[in-house]
């Protein structure tokens, strides 16, 4: 009896254990699937692309930025999630022999400006202050939506900067500069405000590696086109346009990105191999110590594309017709007809009326603080010198 009891108990426990193990296997299988579904932890993508150089001979910096813009748009990030800052206008520059175009390959093979481009900050608006305000979100309340970086803690942000730089600084429009310490502090502000999930920082300038040396916030991966002490070189001039069209590093990055499509599984390690010293002359560098995931698990489309997880459902959803609004608008129509007075157009140049109009008197404002203060000082000095007893001669 006891034997059968214990046997049955053992059997039940065995069954329970087996069930549990099956259950856990099944659970971990589902977890794996879920894991694959949400691999990187981000739900939306943003891109901030900055070109900091002005003047026609810096055509290649605008072409650099526009080629990254083109790739990012092609891989799915919409214009509303891209903040594009170009410090000068090359496409409609009077020196451009082919207006409304910016080419990246010589013989005018690829027009990276295109027909559908939205530049958010242009010309004089590209300043260090505006750039830092965009990153940290501390912008004046009247800024339109297209000029804001509305990222949250589940956003992956790509930041690309190009221009002329040196050891520890990047020049903005030949009149001001941003240092690597300021940039690192801005990223820390972003981290404190939870404005990003992961951040990829790419810079294509001379001595670009100096710009990412000072980063200290987590989840940042950085790439640069050259080490400290090296110059980033340009790729090729075009004899018809007369300037260098692209920088070498970005040229090879563009070639690399042209082969990526939204479904590709290429990872960051391949991006690190782009443009070895033989092609680029400078040594591209990268920094991954602040990044939590292994670069070989990070897909290129995690930053350059906007791959949305889509779940297809077969249920139908009924939409309701809103009858009240239709009725009220119809009534409104009828009410409009009942205005009595006919309206008329204004006379464009009523000479008689203009000649006889009186100029509006400016509103009287009471005297300001300075004038009041000055008079108070004069009166005080007067009475100090001559004494209060002289008041009776005044009043």
């Amino acid at each position, binding site marked *: 009896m006891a034997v059968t009891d214990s046997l049955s108990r053992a059997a039940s426990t065995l069954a329970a254990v087996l069930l549990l193990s099956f259950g856990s296997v099944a659970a971990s299988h589902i977890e794996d699937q879920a894991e694959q579904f949400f691999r990187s932890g981000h739900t939306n993508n943003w891109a901030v692309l900055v070109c900091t150089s002005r003047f026609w001979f810096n055509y290649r910096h605008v072409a650099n930025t526009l080629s990254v813009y083109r790739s990012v748009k092609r891989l799915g990030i919409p214009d509303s999630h891209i903040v594009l800052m170009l410090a000068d206008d090359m496409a409609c520059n009077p020196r451009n022999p082919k207006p409304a175009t910016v080419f990246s390959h010589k013989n005018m093979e690829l027009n990276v400006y295109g027909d559908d*481009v939205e530049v*958010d900050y242009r010309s*004089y608006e590209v300043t260090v202050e505006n750039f830092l305000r965009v990153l940290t979100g501390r912008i004046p309340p009247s800024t*339109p939506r297209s000029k804001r970086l509305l990222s949250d803690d589940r956003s992956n942000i790509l930041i690309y900067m190009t221009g002329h730089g040196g050891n520890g600084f990047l020049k903005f429009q030949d009149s001001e500069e941003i240092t690597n310490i300021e940039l690192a502090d801005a990223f820390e502000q972003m981290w404190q405000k939870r404005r990003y999930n992961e951040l990829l920082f790419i810079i294509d300038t001379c001595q670009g590696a100096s710009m990412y040396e000072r980063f200290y916030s987590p989840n940042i991966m950085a790439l640069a086109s050259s080490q400290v002490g090296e110059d980033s070189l340009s790729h090729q001039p075009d004899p018809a346009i007369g300037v260098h069209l692209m920088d070498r590093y970005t040229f090879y990055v563009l070639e690399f990105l042209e082969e990526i499509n939204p479904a590709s599984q290429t990872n960051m390690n391949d991006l690190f191999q782009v443009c070895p010293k033989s092609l680029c002359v400078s040594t591209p560098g990268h920094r991954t110590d602040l990044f939590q995931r292994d670069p070989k698990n990070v897909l290129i489309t995690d930053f350059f594309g906007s791959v949305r997880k889509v779940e297809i459902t077969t249920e139908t959803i009924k939409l309701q*017709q809103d009858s009240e609004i*239709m009725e009220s608008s*119809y009534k*409104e129509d009828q009410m409009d007809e009942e205005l009595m007075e006919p309206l008329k157009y204004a006379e464009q140049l009523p000479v008689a009326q*203009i000649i006889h109009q009186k100029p509006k008197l400016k509103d009287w404002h009471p005297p300001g603080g300075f004038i009041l203060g000055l008079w108070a000082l004069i009166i005080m000095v007067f009475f100090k010198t001559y004494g209060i007893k002289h008041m009776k001669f005044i009043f």
Partner: protein
Amino acid sequence: MAAAIPLSLLVLLLLGPGGWCLAEHPRDSLREELVITPLPSGDVAATFQFRTRWDSELQREGVSHYRLFPKALGQLISKYSLRELHLSFTQGFWRTRYWGPPFLQAPSGAELWVWFQDTVTDVDKSWKELSNVLSGIFCASLNFIDSTNTVTPTASFKPLGLANDTDHYFLRYAVLPREVVCTENLTPWKKLLPCSSKAGLSVLLKADRLFHTSYHSQAVHIRPVCRNARCTSISWELRQTLSVVFDAFITGQGKKDWSLFRMFSRTLTEPCPLASESRVYVDITNYNQDNETLEVHPSPTTTYQDVILGTRKTYAIYDLLDSAMINNSRNLNIQLKWKRPPENGYIHYQPAQDRLQPHLLEMLIQLPANSVTKVSIQFERALLKWTEYTPDPNHGFYVSPSVLSALVPSMVAAKPVDWEESPLFNSLFPVSDGSNYFVRLYTEPLLVNLPTPDFSMPYNVICLTCTVVAVCYGSFYNLLTRTFHIEEPRTGGLAKRLANLIRRARGVPLL
């Protein structure tokens, strides 16, 4: 039974709004138009206008259904209580002297002028916010508009739409001349059109052709207009205009034949299905059946005549909604050809080579009657080598006079002369036929002042340099190479001095 009642109610509900829907007519309409004007200088101007008229009172709340009128602009009107808005972006300058008067000119750069409703309390604050919002919509730096470049005109810029009273306090005007127009401004402008750039006249709007022009101006105008002839209610009118002038020499390669394909690298294929009117007008005022100076392909079926900007003009109309126009050939490519080539029959120009040969310019011109023709050449002054100057360079240098050889029609026909019989003054030039006579005229020679160097300067420079060298270098040389020793002051009377003099003469040490 119980189920039937809610079912019938449901049916009624469904039919109800459907019934209203059938009774309602569309409350906004779109008209699009393109006017092609060949200009007197050989260029071609093309003006697009897209007009959306919306019969609605936007001031009342509850407007949430936008059909043809773009939502971005409709929300602006209701949020900032606008009465009128005029915004333009222009690159280039309309040259009235060569091109004639424009339909609508705009200043170079960006111009924004706005009339607010009388209900607005803080006009300056609304103005600032409006310019920021517009800078986001049109990708332009309109956020630089502030009190330093805004004015309130007191007499001009009266409202172009309906206005009962005009208190200029509600008007603001600003211009940003440094603003650049490029594809990034054209893209959002195109997206405001109901058919975007997919059908109708807007397929011609390609950025790479539109910016390769001498003049490019795009504008947005919003104003209230009369809804009907009685004018008791308001409709909102949105006009988007785009004017471009194609240069004959840049895009036409010097030829004056034009076609839609050469101008825009596209042809018209189908009308915009949302448009109630879609037409192309071509200015054929110069088209005359007899003279045949200007020919238009395909031949116009209807024309429109009116007094435009003070002169009587004739326009050929091509209606895209007319099925015969498009069905014949799947696309519509309007071509303009000039039949008789204009005056300049022959030009020969041989540029100069320094110190080898001079410029030579020969032109054959047909001068029109009762007119003044001016021919001018620009030149720059250069510096010569110093040996090439004449001894009197301040007189100037001479440029040889121009020669005009002309065949002048004579009033009275002359008969051919016999050179031996007639007087000498009649036989200078051989005359081929008596209807015109040959004459050769010269202009005055031109005396040009070239920049003359100061030839006295070498002499001055040599004197100065030698003085400096002698004084400074000589002193330094002495300081560096001479040694100095101390000399005792000499004491003694006259006798001693005389004796020392004699001793020195003898070469004997002194006392």
